[in-house]
């Protein structure tokens, strides 16, 4: 589904992605973790070309991102992206946030789009908020709407960039629950997150990044039981310590 082959990216002199090789199969749930600034956001943002790569090959859903003639908008329509800061459209109601892209990009009728949106709102537990505006919702509710917005396009892939880091602790659970259900439904997902409980329960693979490279790549039980790199050990100790 997603294949990185020797991918590099620079921000000026900063080598943010250094020889990334990664293959994510359909239906796989991959969690990406690593210290701040290690390139996790950049990595998943390359998948829908929010950040173009400089070198190497990146193939997503059969489309080659290094090729000029690839229709990026078409590819993006197949990929849901959930941001740390939700990024709902503040001028539109919850329902319109969800129906906008299906109606304008997929040419769905209002009726079709709204039926689908209402079903998704039910799924994320926010049916009664259909007519609310984003600013009237809590962070957790906004993020669940953002997930529903992504799912409304029937995406083949869902990407999450630290979806719970901007949330108050008591709201993290409700968002993770929605993501767990989604993972169990067979969605292909890449999730940048330090929620190790989530990683342990539903992910197939954990990727540890440091300084723009993938240092470690293992199934969760193996990653947690005996991480190979010192950096990964250190990181795990920090993140799993009760202080955190």
């Amino acid at each position, binding site marked *: 589904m997603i294949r990185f082959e020797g991918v590099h990216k620079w921000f000026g002199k900063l080598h943010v992605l250094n020889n990334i090789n990664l293959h994510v199969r359909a239906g796989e749930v991959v969690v990406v973790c690593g210290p701040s600034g290690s390139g996790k956001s950049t990595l998943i943002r390359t998948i*829908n070309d*929010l950040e173009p790569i400089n070198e190497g090959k990146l193939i997503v859903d059969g489309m080659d991102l290094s090729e000029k003639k690839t229709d990026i*908008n*078409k*590819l*993006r*329509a*197949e*990929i849901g*992206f959930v*941001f740390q*800061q939700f*990024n*709902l*459209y*503040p*001028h539109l109601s919850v329902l319109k946030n969800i129906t*906008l*892209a299906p109606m*304008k*990009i997929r040419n769905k009728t209002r009726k079709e789009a709204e039926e689908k949106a209402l079903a998704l709102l039910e799924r994320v537990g926010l049916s009664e908020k259909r007519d609310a*505006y984003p*600013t*009237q919702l809590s962070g957790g509710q906004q993020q669940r709407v953002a997930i529903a*917005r992504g799912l409304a*396009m029937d995406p083949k892939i869902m990407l999450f960039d630290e979806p719970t880091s901007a949330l108050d602790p008591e709201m993290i659970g409700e968002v993770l629950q929605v993501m767990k259900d989604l993972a169990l439904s067979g969605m292909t997902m890449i999730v940048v997150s330090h929620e190790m409980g989530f990683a342990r329960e539903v992910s197939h693979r954990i990727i540890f990044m440091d300084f723009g490279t993938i240092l470690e790549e293992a199934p969760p039980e193996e990653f947690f039981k005996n991480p190979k790199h010192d950096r990964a050990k250190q990181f795990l100790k920090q993140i799993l310590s009760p202080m955190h």
Partner: protein
Amino acid sequence: MLTYKFDWAIVTSGKYFDWIVSGFYVTIKLSMVSIALSFLLGLIIAIMRMSHLRPVRWFAHGYLEFFRNTPLLVQIFFWYFGSYKVLPAVANDWLVKQDFEFAAAVIALTIYTSAFIAEDIRSGVRSIPKEQMEAARSSGFSYIRSMQYIILPQAVRLTIPPLINQFLNLMKNSSLAMTIGVAELMYQARQVESYTFKGFEAFSAATLVYLALSFTITGLMTLYDKKVLQPLKGR
């Protein structure tokens, strides 16, 4: 010394009243048409100003600098006295059959005001967080469609207060159209004055009408702000 006799009746009824009323209609028509057109043109120039294509951006930049920095009166005279000299004969024939004074005034007011509106809209767009564009693009919207559905609707809402100002300015500036013989409010007040020598009454009447128009525009925009802008900011 004060031998002037007030005669308010001349501007509240009869022939001169009718003149003022007809001037009022022309002012309304001139302002409304120019407001609508200048908003559209301002929107287009703002989009061009933010284009990724350098020549397009430069053209818009030149347009802004040129029309913002020359007096409106000069622009009105240019379109009225100057433009037909360089237009092809067919266009002139057509123009003569139209209300040419009115058209020249609309063109001048529209272009002049659009330059200010474009800058207001652009700063509105710049105040929208870049994440909004990212969210739109990541759903598969093209740049233009992201602008259309997500960025501009928000930017225009934020631009309402400066836009009110531009619309008020336009309405007040429309009085300059009298200089090329558009029979708007100021022109008619001047006519009344020269026929009756009742300048105080005539121009007081005009002042009151302008004030009423200003308050109406402000009222409408404020209402719009309440109904549309508030949900955006949260309550």
